[in-house]
């Protein structure tokens, strides 16, 4: 009887642990693409600012827009992290 109780407890702990691992992997995977994407956006923005400094204001606004759209994917992953954990 005691063994059975222990086994049940361990199963619960196993479930918790696996949930945490899954949430961690989900968020990590969701952050890969946006990381590359934001790098590309900012890199191109800096390059074009260096080429045409007089367009700086417009480029910066567009850069923030690009970052915001790209970043949204990573943030969905962040929300998913909390959903998967609970």
């Amino acid at each position, binding site marked *: 009887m005691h063994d059975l109780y222990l086994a049940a407890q361990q199963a619960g702990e196993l479930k918790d642990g696996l949930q945490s691992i899954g949430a961690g992997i989900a968020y990590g995977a969701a952050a890969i693409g946006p990381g590359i994407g934001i790098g590309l956006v900012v890199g191109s923005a800096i390059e074009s600012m260096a080429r045409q400094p007089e367009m700086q*204001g*417009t480029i910066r*606004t567009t850069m*923030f*827009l690009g*970052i*915001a759209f790209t*970043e*949204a994917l990573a*943030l*969905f992953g*962040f*929300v998913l992290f*909390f959903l998967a954990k609970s």
Partner: protein
Amino acid sequence: MLAAFTFPPIDELFRWQDLAFGDTPFAINKTSLLMMISVALILIIFIGGSRRMKLIPSRLQNVLEMTYEFIDRGITRDVIGADATRFTPFLGSLFLFILFLNVWEVIPFIQFPPTARFGVPLYLALQTYAIYWYVALRHQGFKYLTGHLFLPGVPWPMYFLLAPIELLQIVVVRPFSLAVRLLANMMAGHILLTALALLTAYALENAPIIAIGPFALNVGVTAFEILVGFLQAYIFTLLTAVYIGDSLHPEH
């Protein structure tokens, strides 16, 4: 040694007790109290500051004029167009409200951004959603929908794929991503600051020398969070302006 460190449940960082009028729809907790204080602060600063305007501005008037200029020129005119100055009051109050709410994150002894509760950004996003649909239906009518669903210059079989995606984009993804972006940024910042502060406190009790690491990191991250709070307020307002501009003028 540090392995014994446990992080408290997430709820403890975001759930607050009712301070007054508990169990009624008007219950006040830390989140709503901070929102009220923010609104009062904005009103006091702006109405008080613009009471006696001079040709040669004082320091406060200078700051207020710069804020107005930043929103009117940097956001309204540049993003929507010169014919849209009637949206400046809305965009300005949106920007200031979110900025003040975000900055509570780093004010000592308060250290909680109300925008880290989903209700606040969700409400703001739904407000934006209602406004851009209203403007779209009023200025473009049904053409807004068809212009979005059937982008010009695309071979027609692609419409079977693109039209549903575009519909989902303007109906669901836009307001949802607007709300989640603000929420997740502020929530992540709050959790990060709490984790570093707890780590510092824990290290101080057990091994005071290594407490320097998390403490220095905490100071740095606090400065970074001020930047993030400003940037998120700016991005929220900017995207609102982009969506309104998209509703006001047909696709270029």
